[in-house]
């Protein structure tokens, strides 16, 4: 029974990562935009939702006590807007400027989380964030399973939305821009505009993931959004298969499992006083894995599928 409760808890966290990974897949897998500040966008979503839904607190701005769903919506809106602003600034320039700027925005956002105490609660963060099905907390198994259901529903909804978009004319234009900028422009498409849309959409999904995760855990603190999170999500998408939405979900569950197992193994092997330092080996494992995949199987476990046109073959291509 305890195992079932832990399994549900593990999967819920893994699935919140799957949502982030799906968001990154829109930016990187579909569009080829390298975002090194994933944790920052997730954090913006988490904090936005926390400010909107927590009960009133005289020491802080916010505390609007709004429903959780409003928090989720607000998280998407604000994270999407931040992504739009970053994209607007950098998408016209060479591709690695986006990498550097997103790295910078994550550093800057981390400072805001830590230092703007009247909004974010500073280093200690915010507690009393409403949890879905809070009434069931006395029964951990039911509570965890109900939350797993909610998170799985979010993953499914995002997945279906992205699959639909991928097959739509918009998704085709996106891939056209990724594959051949000049040809897409010759067909009258604006690469910068469509990249910007994709980057903002990906950011909004990451914000949603942050909100979902924060409401499940019940508190938010700057330490949850360190560069390590960015790095884990990248490993998830690359391992699973960038460009493939199912790969993004599979990679999230798989890498999160490797993370949890390697953590447990280190706790088993190293004596108590060495564990803080040995925990850094977990990151080494993921880092080496990321590099090996890039070298040997860059397409990941589930490679990108080329969607086939549903029209009969005789018809000329568009």
């Amino acid at each position, binding site marked *: 029974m305890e195992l079932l409760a832990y399994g549900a808890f593990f999967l819920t966290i893994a699935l919140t990562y799957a949502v982030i990974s799906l968001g990154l897949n829109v930016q990187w897998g579909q569009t*080829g935009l*390298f975002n*090194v500040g994933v944790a920052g966008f997730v954090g913006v979503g988490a904090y936005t939702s926390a400010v909107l839904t927590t009960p009133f607190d005289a020491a802080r701005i916010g505390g609007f006590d709004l429903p959780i769903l409003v928090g989720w919506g607000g998280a998407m809106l604000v994270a999407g807007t931040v992504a739009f602003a970053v994209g607007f*600034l*950098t998408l016209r*320039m*060479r*591709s*690695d*400027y986006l*990498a*550097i*700027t997103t*790295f*910078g*925005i994550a*550093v*800057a956002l981390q*400072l805001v989380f*830590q*230092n703007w105490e009247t909004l974010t609660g500073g280093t200690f963060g915010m507690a009393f964030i409403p949890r879905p099905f809070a009434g069931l907390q006395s029964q951990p198994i039911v509570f965890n399973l109900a939350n797993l259901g909610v998170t799985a529903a979010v993953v499914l909804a995002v997945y279906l939305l992205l699959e639909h978009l991928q097959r739509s004319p918009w998704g085709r234009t996106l891939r056209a821009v990724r594959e051949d900028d000049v040809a897409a422009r010759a067909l009258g498409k604006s690469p910068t505009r469509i990249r910007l849309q994709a980057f903002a959409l990906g950011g909004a999904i990451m914000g949603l993931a942050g909100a979902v995760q924060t409401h499940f855990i019940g508190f938010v603190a700057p330490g949850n959004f360190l*560069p*390590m999170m960015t*790095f884990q999500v*990248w*490993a998830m998408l*690359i391992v699973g298969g960038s460009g493939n939405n199912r790969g993004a979900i599979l990679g999230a569950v798989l890498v999160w499992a490797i993370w949890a197992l390697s953590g447990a193994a280190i706790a088993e092997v190293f004596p108590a006083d060495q564990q*803080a*330092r*040995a925990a*850094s*080996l*977990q*990151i*080494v494992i*993921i*880092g*080496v894995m*990321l*590099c090996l995949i*890039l*070298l040997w199987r*860059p397409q990941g476990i589930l490679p990108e599928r080329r969607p086939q046109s549903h029209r009969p073959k005789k018809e000329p291509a568009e």
Partner: protein
Amino acid sequence: MNPQAIVEGVIAGSTIGLGAIGLTLTYSILRFANFTHGDFLAWGAYFTLSIVGFLGGMLAGLGAPLKPFSFGLALPLSVLGGMVLTVLLALALDRVLFGRLRARGAETIIIVMASFGASMALRSLLEFIYTARPEYYTKALQIAQPIGFGMRATPDQLFVIGLTAVLVAGLHLMVTRSATGRAMRAVAENPALAGIYGIDVGQVIRVTWVIGAALACVAGVMAGLLVQIRPYMGFDLLLPLFAAAILGGIGSIPGAMLGGLIIGLSEAFAVQIIGAEWRAAVSFIILVLVLLLRPQGIFGRKVE
């Protein structure tokens, strides 16, 4: 305004500038934003620390401070060893990772991603080997001496500024005057064409790593000498390094140095005006301003 901020800024700027030179060279010649560069600084600092410990164990006399500095002869000797090891680390990483991706014709952004993964792994490995506890090259305390205009500096700080000036001037002469420097500029301009003209592109790439990693080691040791040595020191310097390289103009050595000084001074003044907790945001704000107003940087030409 406290004039002491100028001293602090120039010193921090020297470290950032030296680190940014290596970054800007690899950026223009190997054509990718190398996220492991910050970790070269940290590894260089720790390599040097280990050699200092090793030498100190063998010959006690080497550790005795050379007046008026806080460090003994062991430190400069160890830096040379640290530079060699950092260079070997960079060349090894290029051999097993970046070089293979280049040979496969991987996109730039894939190489950037690989450098991001390698940087996480290198930093955590450092934390595993040396633990997260801060280390110091010397426990000696130094008194800051007045140097005029109401400013004070320790002999170590003045030494760092002087050494930076010598290194930058020497490197600038080498790149602008020597055959190797010409070859480097040719490869930065157009690697394929440079190859056709008989330039050994592989050799130029190795020279670039040698210069970049050696300077990274010196910058890391300086940061360690003036502040402290931590596994995350390179990561914390990464954003200032990128901001300095872009502000100066990618590929420009004087630009990277000037960019480093501007960032160091801005940080020092920001600490006085808005507070130390926002220091790390200064580089980001400068980076955004440069991208908005002059994306090619101070000395850069327009990038595509």
